[in-house]
């Protein structure tokens, strides 16, 4: 079925809706060439329609062990071409069918490069997949213009676990994990690091998170605008100084705010599996997986916070460290999935930190 992508600013891209229905969300692009399933199931993409810049999607189908969470959280897939015949000896079905089952709309045959360049120049923005069946383009444009912005949106409640649960009991260290929409691969890495995890919902108070039975606290990734989560921020703040803390992505941003810093929305964010990060402690480059639309504003940080990692392309903060307390955080995703494993050692770094401070 013919369909259009309508951006909030009224810009229109042509395409087709192979699943026959439309939808909406913030249009963002990722340059990762593989890993559509991990991306679509990454809770950090909640509320966003993902434009895959690589034109061939769905080639190897769907695999149970590639899910980053129980379901796809992205609200749409924007792509150039969708394969309906999965090719993999171990795939359990095709991408299109899987998306249909989860009612995730697809806009394919789209000029994803033109869209990417437009978002790059004009910034990510709310948008609609508008099919012929949805009515006149005019009506679509009117609707698109009324869409809410991502700034100010708190989405953790949607994606976080409802109740506390444990993983890998008997692990060397006992770690509280604050789940703002955590990826399975992060949990896998923490477990692989030999940690006993207790995973808590996003709105858990500091008193529980910093309980004395814990050797450390881990702050997960998550969707939406970190500035819209004052509650979480306060609780994280209350934990500072009580135990070693490691934060990734949203966790990193929450720490930044808890330290007294501000976050701001990047024009089109960093999303991909080829993002070069300069590790200022070793002087070396890590090729990292990234997925964030907001970043910590360096100028707003107090003196005792040291920048340990920078994005090589735009110099934005990729890692922070507290000079006095056992706290560090990364904006990129050391667990990768999808992406290179260069930053894996970060999890070991967390373990070492707990060794030193327990």
């Amino acid at each position, binding site marked *: 079925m013919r369909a259009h992508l*309508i951006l909030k600013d*009224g*810009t*229109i*891209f*042509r395409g087709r809706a192979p699943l026959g229905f439309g939808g909406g969300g913030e249009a963002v*692009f990722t*340059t*990762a*060439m*593989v*890993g559509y399933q*991990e991306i679509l199931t990454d809770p950090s993409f909640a509320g966003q329609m993902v434009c895959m*810049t*690589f*034109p*061939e999607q769905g*080639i*190897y189908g769907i*695999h149970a*062990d*590639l899910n980053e969470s129980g379901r796809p959280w992205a609200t749409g897939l924007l792509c*150039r*071409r969708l*394969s309906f*015949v999965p*090719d*993999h000896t171990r795939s359990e079905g095709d991408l299109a069918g899987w998306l249909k089952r989860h009612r995730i709309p697809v806009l394919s*045959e*789209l*000029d994803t*490069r*033109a*869209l*990417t*360049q*437009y978002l*790059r*120049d004009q910034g990510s923005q709310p948008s609609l997949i508008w099919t012929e069946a949805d009515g*006149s383009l*005019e009506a679509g*444009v009117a609707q698109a213009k009324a869409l809410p912005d991502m700034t100010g949106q708190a989405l953790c409640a949607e994606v976080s676990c409802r109740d506390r649960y444990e993983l890998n009991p008997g692990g060397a260290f006992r770690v509280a994990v604050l789940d703002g929409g955590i990826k399975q691969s992060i949990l896998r890495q923490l477990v692989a690091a030999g940690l006993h995890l207790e995973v808590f919902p996003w709105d858990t108070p500091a008193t529980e998170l910093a309980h004395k039975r814990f050797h450390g606290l881990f702050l997960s990734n998550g969707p939406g605008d970190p500035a819209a989560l004052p509650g979480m921020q306060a609780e994280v703040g209350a934990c500072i100084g009580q135990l070693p803390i490691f934060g990734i992505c949203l966790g990193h941003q929450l720490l930044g705010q808890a330290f007294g810093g501000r976050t701001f929305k990047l024009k*089109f964010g960093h999303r*991909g*599996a*080829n*993002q*070069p990060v*300069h590790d200022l402690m070793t*002087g*070396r*480059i890590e*090729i990292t997986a990234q997925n964030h639309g907001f970043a910590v504003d360096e100028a707003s940080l107090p003196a005792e916070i040291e920048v340990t990692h920078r994005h*090589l*392309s735009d110099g934005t903060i990729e890692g922070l460290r507290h000079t006095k307390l056992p706290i560090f955080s990364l904006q990129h995703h050391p667990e990768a*999935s*999808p*992406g*290179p*494993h260069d930053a894996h050692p970060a999890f070991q770094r967390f373990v070492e930190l707990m060794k030193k401070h327990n």
Partner: protein
Amino acid sequence: MPKRTDLKSVLVLGSGPIQIGQACEFDYSGTQALKALREEGIRTILLNSNPASIMTDPGRADATYIEPLTLGVLEKVLEAERPDAILPTVGGQTALNLAMEAHESGLLQRTGVTLIGAQPEAIKRGEDRQLFKALMDDLGLETCRGGFAHNMGEARDLLKLTGFPSIIRPSFTLGGSGGGIAYNVEEFETIVARGLDLSPTKQVLIEESILGWKEFELEVVRDLDDNVEVICSIENLDPMGIHTGDSITVAPILTLTDPEYQRMRDAAMAVIRAVGVETGGSNIQFALEPETSRIIVIEMNPRVSRSSALASKATGFPIAWVATKLALGYRLWELPNAITRMTKAAFEPVLDYVVVKIPRFTFEKFPQADKVLGTQMKSVGEVMALGRSFQEALQKAVRSLEEGHKGLSGALEGKLDLGRLKEHLIIPGAQRLFWVYHGLKAGHSVEELHRLTKITPWFLHEIEEIVVLEGRLRSFPVDRLPVDLLEKAKRAGFADDQIAVFCSGTEAEVAARRDALGLHPAYKRVDTCAGEFKAETPYLYGTWETAAGAEVHGASLRLKGSAQEVRYVETSEAPPTDRPKAIVLGSGPNRIGQGVEFDCCCVQAVEAIRASGVEAILINCNPETVSTDFDTSDRLYFEPLTYEHVKAVVDREAGAGAEAYHAEHGPEGGAQEGPRKAAGGHLLGVFAQFGGQTPLKLAGPLHAAGVKLLGTPLSAILDAEDRERFGQVLKRLDIPAPQWGMATSFTEALEVAKRLDYPVMVRPSFVLGGRAMAVVFDDAGLEKYMREAVAVSNDQPVLLDRFLEGAQELDIDVVCDGEQVVIAGLLAHIEEAGIHSGDSYAVIPALGVPEGILEMVKEYARRLALDLGVLGLMNLQFAVKDGIAYCLEANPRASRTVPFVSKATGVDWAGVAARVGLGQSLRQQGVTDGVPRAVSVKGVVFPFAKFPGVDPVLGPEMKSTGEVMGIGETFGEAYAKSLLAAGIPLPLSGTVFLTVNDADKVRLPELAHKLVALGFGLCATEGTARTLESVGLKVRKIFKVNEGRPNAVDLLKNGEVQWVINTPLGRAAFFDESSIRKEALRLKIPCLTNLSAALAACEAVETLRGEMTVRAIQSLG
């Protein structure tokens, strides 16, 4: 830490002549390396024997040595130049091996020169399969079960371990020469024997077979801080068992999940670190078993490789340039990303398109060759295509091959005997892709084809979709083609002319239909970052994005009955500039008869155009070349060289259909409301004379479409190309030509032959590289030829020429500006006419040819150029007999010899021609006849070693893959060097075996006396011996192969003969001779097949015995 400051001068080793397994990709990498070095103010010295390369143009290095790539020469160059370091990693296996020789012989230590890029230990670990295997075990990475054998005994033991089929691969050979797959004991023993013989270390690797596994390659770079990144991942469509160089490959890897890919990436990083390649690029190959995801490491090349060139063009990331900077001590994060300019080289390129590479084979040249593809590389060139889907890229690539395929259904439509489908799918050959297509078309299932070919099903499914589309297209006449279907077809890579066939219309009608429906190609940038950053470099490819559709044009449209303004974003980027500009058409894939030398001409032309303040736009589809480097031209369109693709670029650059660029949102200015002024304009025209026959073929259609040809006009091209018309021109200008005639049937041919009388030279009209040419001596031969040739020439008439026996052949290149003609170079062939100009050694100045003749030939050339109205380059070939110079042919374009002549005379003749095309007269340019600055001999190399069983005899059909240059003060020195560079080290003593035909017996004594004077012993066959004895020479008589034992071949085998001189005796003795020549080839005993060359060789031997000197071409004349 920034770059090393201790390096003031660096020697770059080139890869020598183009040969199978080592083509012009190393011209690309060497050229980039030189650029990278000079930018740092480092004095650059280049050693490369290949004159057809761009890198050996005088301006590219401070001191350029066009000399043989041997240890002896290297030593002299080191002594003369005293460089601080040698960069051995951009000249392929040849450079790497030479560097290792220099290391092991102690030359490096003695001269205090170090290697940069890769250290000897690392090179050893990477190249020596034994060390490498051990290393992989330490890393816990899997390699194939198997081991090394140094003799048949060890081999047999290993066979017990591997079983059949078993893979046999000699160590340290190029492109896997001598390797193979053995299915039975007999094959096993033959391949092992051959492998042991070919391996410089007399060592073969014998491995279990993992035929049918998926094969992958990763291009990896590393810097001194141990930062490692993967530049490009490549998936082979053809599974394990077919050499990557002979496989259709795709970038990036398509059919792996992220965990599978990351495991491979982790392994690659472990490998490059363990091998210890300090800096620069490496190529690592893997195999993956689909069922289990088991990964096996196949090999690593610790240097820039063929795949690196492909990876560079596929991603836009200049691997060789970066590798060189890293070798100087830069860190990846210190280097700019040359395409975005704003980001750094420390990142991993991402693509937003699919790249397909298809190898180009030339089996038609070697009928007796084994055409089955295996572990040894056999292709001579390759094409690359970019598209926004695999289907599009695949069909574009197929078209780029210039083998007559309009797309996948291809030229073989209806020509394949589907009864033999299975066999052609199981036993891979050059045409397998088309068998797959027609198999699917015939209704065979993807599953079945997968079972037979082991090609990953997804690729087969995609191809099946193309089959289905073809079916749907066939059900419409052109003027009824529905927009959705036509759009889908174009996006799947169907060409207009192909659709025309399906819908029984013309290409023009299909194009018109497209226009009517608002379907236009879009042009996208290759930017290394999938659009994440603005790119500055116009490296472009064409594709098909969702049609604007009739209803929209330009930035905004008012929705019907509404005040609502909405904006559509258009899809093309990098709109044409409004500078004056000229398009240069490239030469497409390398093949025998059209290789790197034409790319060299294109690049010289492009540089001249840029220097004249005109924007140079290049179109080409060959990823191995310098011309397809994004910074060679002002604008690069990586597109097939077919009418549709070229015309589309012309239209775009001329500004036609400019409305298609409205609301350009690209880097040139962000999204904007309202129509923008039509882009483009000022297109001066198109150059069709630098890329060989490829662009020349397009000249007609382009001219017909009203496109201006720069330089030589179409009429002149036709006058020269069309034999009928050319014959008349020659008559009118009374320039002698061999008597000739045309025939379309055997009976016609008989009559013509009677008129000309035998021997006659026969060939189909309109062919390059002497394709399907032959000399026939009698009616029987003629009949046989007509039967076969008429097939090749698909019913175009066959040409018959009076064959001028024993004539002296001359090659002349001229430039004409309409008023004046300058002679660029006049070459005398060493072999007599009858051996293709591309295959014969030639010398400039034309030594040994009477002044009078030379003047006559120059005069003829001037007359012809002016009369035809040539504007730019023209090449002529003459055969001189009995004081008469007969014109054999005219090529109204840059010829194969132009780069060689440029080096010999120090003038960039293609550049001169380009300036003429832009309206600058020769007088204005101040160019005069080229003056040879020394004696230069062009030598040639043949691929016979790659085709065991092929008779290495030469004839009018071109067979060589590459050329070398020998520069000297005397002819002897130059010729000796050219032979040395071509890998034919003449013996300085020993026994010469002579067997020559009657015609040659006249000159035989002269040769024999020379040989004896040089101290050689003589042995000869009956007839030849009698002649020698008759002039009182001592000679040992030996049997012909079929006369008894010990015969000639026995002597060769026993090492009793060091040199063979055998001029063909004609059909009778054919078997006998070819077995001698084949044996000589196998044993690497020099074998000259004609007397002139042999006489010349005697002079060479004298110089070889003395001291040889080397000179930089910059120091000549």
